[in-house]
């Protein structure tokens, strides 16, 4: 999506004056930014800047002590993760969090759970409407498998897969929820160049093909600058910059935060 379109896009999620503290440690202080429909929004910052905390706030895992979050026009202060999931927010984790003993296929099907409507009775029967539903879900899952090009590991237990592929399966599971907002916590961490390029391609394709809004936490600056439409920079829990990749790159406080300042 071009930046002109994004600039005029509706706000999907807005974070206003949010603060979060664990005891005396202030993880996030008074941060505000918005995420527009259809954009790829990156959150960057040095280690311990509060990026993952921010993601956990967005999907309702942490509850901020102060501030407001507005998602699809609805303001809330407290929300549980499964409410977020139902509302259309999916995520992947910094450390892969899959069911290691299950196959890739089953892991991705697990992502459909919230979309299965037939009750346990029908599902146990495996008959009529439940079967029809199952076939529909499987079709959808197969589309994702095709999309991510993981046909050859469909039946492989996830625990046996190399790291890069596990990350891809995790993305597949998040996509299976058909989310409106997809939160990716360091999708390229620990990958080699080729895997990074593949993953970048997939992120762009997801955004393009499904029109999914994406929030991306990433350390690889090259990836961030190439992929994202807008970037938020956090440092020690405080927002220090917000803008297009080019604007952020030239920002003095960002340079200072990354390279350090002479005291």
């Amino acid at each position: 999506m071009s930046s002109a379109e994004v600039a005029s896009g509706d706000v999907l999620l807005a974070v206003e004056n949010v603060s979060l503290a664990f005891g005396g440690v202030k993880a996030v202080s008074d941060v505000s930014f918005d995420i527009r429909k259809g954009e790829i929004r990156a959150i960057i910052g040095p280690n311990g800047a509060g990026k993952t905390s921010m993601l956990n706030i967005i999907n309702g895992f942490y509850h901020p002590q102060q501030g407001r979050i507005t998602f699809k026009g609805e303001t809330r202060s407290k929300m549980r993760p499964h409410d977020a999931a139902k509302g259309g927010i999916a995520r992947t984790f910094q450390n892969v969090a899959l069911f290691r003993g299950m196959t890739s296929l089953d892991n991705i099907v697990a992502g459909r759970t919230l979309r299965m409507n037939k009750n346990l009775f029908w599902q146990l029967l495996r008959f009529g409407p439940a079967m029809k539903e199952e076939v529909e879900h499987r079709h959808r899952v197969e589309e994702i498998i095709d999309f991510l090009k993981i046909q050859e590991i469909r039946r492989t237990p996830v625990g046996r897969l190399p790291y890069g592929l596990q990350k891809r399966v995790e993305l597949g599971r998040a996509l299976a929820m058909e989310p409106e907002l997809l939160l990716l916590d360091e999708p390229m961490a620990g990958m080699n160049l080729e895997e990074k390029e593949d993953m970048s391609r997939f992120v762009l394709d997801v955004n393009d093909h499904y029109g999914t809004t994406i929030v991306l936490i990433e350390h690889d600056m090259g990836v961030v600058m190439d992929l994202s439409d807008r970037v938020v920079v956090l440092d020690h829990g405080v927002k220090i910059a917000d803008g297009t990749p080019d604007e952020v790159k030239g920002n003095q406080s960002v340079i200072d935060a990354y390279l350090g300042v002479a005291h």
Partner: protein
Amino acid sequence: MPVDSAAADTFPKLLIRNAQIYGARPSMRHKDLGVWQTWTWAEVLEIVRAYAVGLHRLGVKRGETVAIVGSNRPKLYWSVMAAQTLGAIPVPVYADAVAEELSFVLAHADVRFAAVEDQEQIDKIQSVKDRLPKLERMVYDETRGLRDYDHSHLTSMEDVIADGRKALVDDPALGAWLDAEIAAIKGSDPSIILYTSGTTGTSKGVVLTGERSVTAAADTVAFDRLTENDVALAYLPLAWVGDHYLNYAQGLVSGFCMACPESADTAMSDLREIGPTFYFAPPRTLEVLLTRVMIRMEDAGLLKRKLFHYFLGVARRYGERILNGQSVPLTGRLLYALGNILIYGPLKNTLGFSRVRVAYTAGEAIGPDLFAFYRSMGLNFKQLYGQTEAFLYITAQPDGEIYSDTVGPACSNVDIRIADNGEVLFKSPGMFSGYFKDAAKTAEAMTPDGYVMTGDAGYFDEKTGHLKIIDRAKDVGKLNDGTLFPPKYIENKLKFYPNIREAVAYGDKRDFVAVMINIDLTAVGSWAERNNVVYASYQELAGHPLVYDMIEKHVVEVNRSLAADKMLAGVQIKRFLILHKELDADDGELTRTQKVRRGFIADRYAALIKALYDGSNEADISTEVTFEDGRKGTISARVKIRDMAIVPTPALGKAA
């Protein structure tokens, strides 16, 4: 338009014939979204006609080339068919070709249109666009990632087919026009241009005509009795003559079903699901499969392991003889039948070979043990010899006459002659009509009386009457007494022993044959462990007298097998040594594809070569080596040389 079988001298005509007589039979399968999709011959004909009209409306003309780039997918095969239906010439290109190779072929073939698989191929072609001024339009199969591309030069195949389908409905005359176009294609018109992979110099475009292709395929279809009930898995590269012949041409001639795997990586499991009846695999693939089976068996429980090895022995004793229809004692037959229930059947099922009726292997020399393993399982693996210029088949082994070291007698209607320098020359029904835009190279490849020079040296085996390929013709030398010396043949014989990793044979313009041998550290190392041979380094192990003894035994066996052959009795190995270091591509001794560079090695180890031929029993050598981190060092060693007894060959009366 009814088409007479006998008059079907081009692929488009065969497609019409198949739709008539095999209309409801499956023509093509493809695994998509986890499910096998099937198209019947009638459906394929309808799609190809619509596609051809769509291409025509985009401007594809008779006699023009159309590049086909991608993996084995129905739409790409239909692109080939649609182009041929218009009388245009498809030019398949390897999907994994780098942009450089791609631009060479596309530019050389003057393509205006390209049918490509996906975004990856489009990106690749667009990156070399400035070198392809003639390229006007690409049609693509997979739409993903292409939404934001400039579509002034891109159309999806789906749209082309839909457009053609609509045009055929709107204008009834169009169908008749297409029929006339198909009828107007002559059997002598080019049907396809296959570019050779270019391992020997730049790639050349081999032009094959429709009639010759169909005739050649009809011969082998009859030879192997292929019918519309057969199934093949199309997993070999689309641009390779093997795929075009074995699957495409034979499929159209016999009406069998061609199944396209879901992706290149799933080919093995797709093989199992499809259970082909006709199968081709290069020796390398068979070796990988066997290794995988053996490794898995090592992890199996004791009972299973014992059973496996016991029945493997049974199969080794009786399997091949049963397959060849020779006499086998009743106990052997019973044991083999039991083994089939317990081991061979399940194993074949796991590998996807349960229904294989005819299978071929070709491309390089196959180890006798490897070959025997598959045959003893009851799989009818055979060898063939061929090349692109012949439209694949030159020779093939008939059922019941299978040998691991021959490639069979000439195929039906193929005429083979051996030139004075040992080079194999042939004339065949499917032979090419020339290299595209390269009359000079065409003339170079042909003898004045119309035989094609294969570049391979070989001879007809006296016992079997089969052709034996021994080496590339340009590598074959002569001993001082005039005996033909094929180095690779000798090296391959040695390399079939797991203990020998590499061998380099010398003998051209020498009095006798001498070899330098590289031991295989894994195999010899584990042998040393079992036999309490202590060593501290590769060099020490390689120089160990017991290792020398073991290798000597292998050399004796090789000599014995050479002596059994009148043609090769003179090139028995007289002296050998074991190299003190492994030949390595980093030191330039091997190519990156692990082929020995004989000349370079001769220069580098000149001192050893000298010692091999001056009769000394050992030689000192010091060589510079490159370590993995790029540093250089020197290895010095004293290498021993062993003399070998020459096995007497009464036929030649040349006892040593």
